[in-house]
């Protein structure tokens, strides 16, 4: 199930909300867990089975981690979720790289034929972080399987993050089991849900449609101006797609009295590539920092560690060399910034923001094009073909409007503000209900979230 589906918004969410507030406190986590498993399982019983095995495995082996030799126990603990991740997501990539023949593929038919489990990279990282935190004695193993299942399955963060750590949710889940009176933030929850849905359909998906307009024309017919606008559209598409999902996730969490971390903090306002990764997909950046980068030695062997971590970022996003290249490109950007920091930090803010945005945007087509196609795309771009073959003034105006919203709108003033104290029109319930209704009516035009496939 997806957040931008009628089944979710019209049936699943109201029913789960009603049940959640109707039952006695000790049954609330049952409602959440069963609802979340239904939410996930509707895509297929095989992937639900794999997910449940991974949960039970991580739960059980956490006790082993405390008692047995550290590295061996940790290896055992993470082996099951990592196995599923590799087999479901990376097997094809590995066999392609090894140039394996059809007989080898036939042996793995079961894994190939199963739909890529949605959000597998997200929940695998959550389960691995739990095992490592237990191993590091940061947290105690959770004895309550229901609470642990609720952490892993809580549907607002299940498909596309944020990547949660157990200590972020433990106390909140515990409170749900005992508090007789709940004080949900329903206003901000519904506001974020309405805005997220509206932006997904009318910004991210419209941008995606415009991108396709350029893709339907042979590359040699595109002018440099067309390519430029297409790159900007890609940039806004992927940002608002993931942003909308994350905003909806935070809003949904609030409806159930769970505060999820904000995964984006206006990343396109970053003044340098390092800051970008502290604002974009924040929970992934911190996960990799804490569990990979620091453990590899951090600033010792800085270049090696950064390149490795960013190659991992790329691989996490997708099983393909284009994703690895995208990650390494960002690694080089971060290293370059480190080397040029003295001069870079002295640039005027607008210049440094512009450069960072341009450098980041230039790499987004790698998400959608293979490595070879991307190389051709860039070669054609630098040939500076003149004219406007595909995108006319309306597309430019659209991009300009999105640019204004992205670079001049401040989320703390209109999105994450306190609605009670706000006089802004965006906080009017009639407007927000109309946005939700417009989203519901137009859901047939909506596309799957880009991060859904990670």
């Amino acid at each position, binding site marked *: 199930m997806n957040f931008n589906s*009628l*089944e979710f918004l019209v049936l699943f969410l109201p029913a789960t909300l009603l049940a959640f507030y109707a039952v006695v406190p000790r049954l609330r986590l049952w409602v959440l867990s069963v609802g979340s498993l239904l939410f996930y399982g509707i895509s297929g019983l*095989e992937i639900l089975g794999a997910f449940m095995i991974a949960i039970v495995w991580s739960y059980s082996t956490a006790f082993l981690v405390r008692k047995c030799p550290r590295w061996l126990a940790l290896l055992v603990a993470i082996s099951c979720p990592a196995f599923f991740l590799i087999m479901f997501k990376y097997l094809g990539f590995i066999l392609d790289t090894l140039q394996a023949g059809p007989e080898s593929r036939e042996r793995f038919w079961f894994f190939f034929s199963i739909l890529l489990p949605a959000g597998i990279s997200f929940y695998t990282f959550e389960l691995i972080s739990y095992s490592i935190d237990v191993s590091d004695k940061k947290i105690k193993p959770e004895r309550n399987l229901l609470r642990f299942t609720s952490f892993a399955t809580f549907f607002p963060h299940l498909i596309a993050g944020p990547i949660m750590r157990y200590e972020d949710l433990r106390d909140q889940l515990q409170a749900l089991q005992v508090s007789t009176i709940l004080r949900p933030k329903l206003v901000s929850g519904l506001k974020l849900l309405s805005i997220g849905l509206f932006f997904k359909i009318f910004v991210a998906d419209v941008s995606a449609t415009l991108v396709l307009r350029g893709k339907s024309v042979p590359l040699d017919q595109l002018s440099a101006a067309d390519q430029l606008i297409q790159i900007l559209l890609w940039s806004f598409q992927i940002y608002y797609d993931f942003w909308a999902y994350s905003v909806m996730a935070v809003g949904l969490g609030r409806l159930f009295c769970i505060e999820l971390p904000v995964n984006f903090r206006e990343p396109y306002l970053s003044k340098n590539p390092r800051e970008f990764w502290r604002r974009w997909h924040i929970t992934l950046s911190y996960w990799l920092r804490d569990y990979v980068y620091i453990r590899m030695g951090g600033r010792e062997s800085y270049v090696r560690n950064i390149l490795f971590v960013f190659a991992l970022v790329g691989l996490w996003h997708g099983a393909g060399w284009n994703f690895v290249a995208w990650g390494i490109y960002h690694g080089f950007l971060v290293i370059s910034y480190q080397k040029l920091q003295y001069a870079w930090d002295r640039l005027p803010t607008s210049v440094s923001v512009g450069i960072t945005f341009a450098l980041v945007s230039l790499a987004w087509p790698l998400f959608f094009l293979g490595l070879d196609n991307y190389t051709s795309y860039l070669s054609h771009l630098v040939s500076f073909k003149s004219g406007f073959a595909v995108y006319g003034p*309306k597309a430019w105006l659209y991009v300009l409007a999105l640019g204004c919203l992205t670079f001049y709108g401040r989320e703390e003033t209109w999105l994450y503000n306190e609605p009670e104290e706000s006089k802004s029109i965006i906080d009017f*319930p*009639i407007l927000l*209900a109309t946005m939700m209704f417009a989203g519901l009516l137009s859901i047939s035009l909506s596309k799957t979230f880009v991060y859904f*496939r990670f």
Partner: protein
Amino acid sequence: MKASERYQRHWLSFYAFTLGLLIIASNGLYFRLPDYRSPPFDFRTMRVGDLFNVYGLTRRQEGSVKLGFAETLAAPEIGAFGNHIIQYFGGDAFYNDDPNYFFNYWYENLSLPEIYSYLRHLEQRRRLPRKLLIVQITAPNADNGNFILNWGNELPLDVVLHSYDGRASFDVFRIADYIKQVVDNYLHETFNYNTVASALFQGGYRNRVLPRGSCQPDVPLWMSPFPYGIRSLFDSCGALWAAYKRDGSITESNPGQTREAPVKDEDPLGSSDRGLKPGDAFEIARYLSVINDIGQRNGVKVVFIVPPVYESDRRDSIVNQIFNRSLKLVPSNITILDHRDLGSDPSLFQSTRHPSLKYYRMVATELARLGFIKLQPPS
């Protein structure tokens, strides 16, 4: 009561009231839409060259124009059942566009379970084609395995429910699937901008049959960013793209507009939005069998066709492999014309997923060769 709680209560009341009102209004509009099933439109009254303009109609209404004809009037010798993939399959493939000889029953997004429902409905009404049923199966690579088994939810509920066969054996999953389809069927039609806009602005029925060439092809430029469903409402008849010919197929192209070249491999075959899973091979084979049974018990021959999609060599795709497995499970007495290997010839396509007249002439020739029909090309 604290001020914050009072604020929250007021805010939620306004939100719920507004949203509720809008939803009730949209549902009310849905019920206001005219249904073209009754009285049915008789395609046989159209003259050669006439077109039935479907502009401004919702997909379900478009389908209802044909459904009304199919369930009360039609009984051609040959009937083609499928989805938009075969929309250009007309009687001209057989050199005979008389709707009494050939009628194309295509609905926008039908899958095999829905084609089965449709045929069962016609069987109950004793309105099946008399000699040959041609049933199209969406090529797996055309939509990454979608719309082979996945429902499109555009058939009216009564047609879907008539064919429910879960009562014979109690199968929880099948019952759950039916309930899901019934709910989806309703939701996708009522929560739909096209339904609301059509109900608000839809024009009359009387002027929908027009001679070809009577309309101007230009769509106002300022309308171009809007989705097709909206554009079509204001575009009085603008162009006759997607208008029905008297054999139920549609016009090859928008008169006055140049045909867009098909795009190779337009649909990616990503693993996250695949429409087939391993167990589906059995389900596909089962549907081919039960559809074939409908023909057998009514003395009508059944042929399945798998039209090609314009693509590079992607025969090893997972969805293709699952489909291959299903074909191996099908009894040998079922005829399947599998044309997936024809995907590299652009001349066989009107657009990426839609084969052209040239392809359908090939199908007709093959049917004649196999003895299903007698083909008499003009000398």
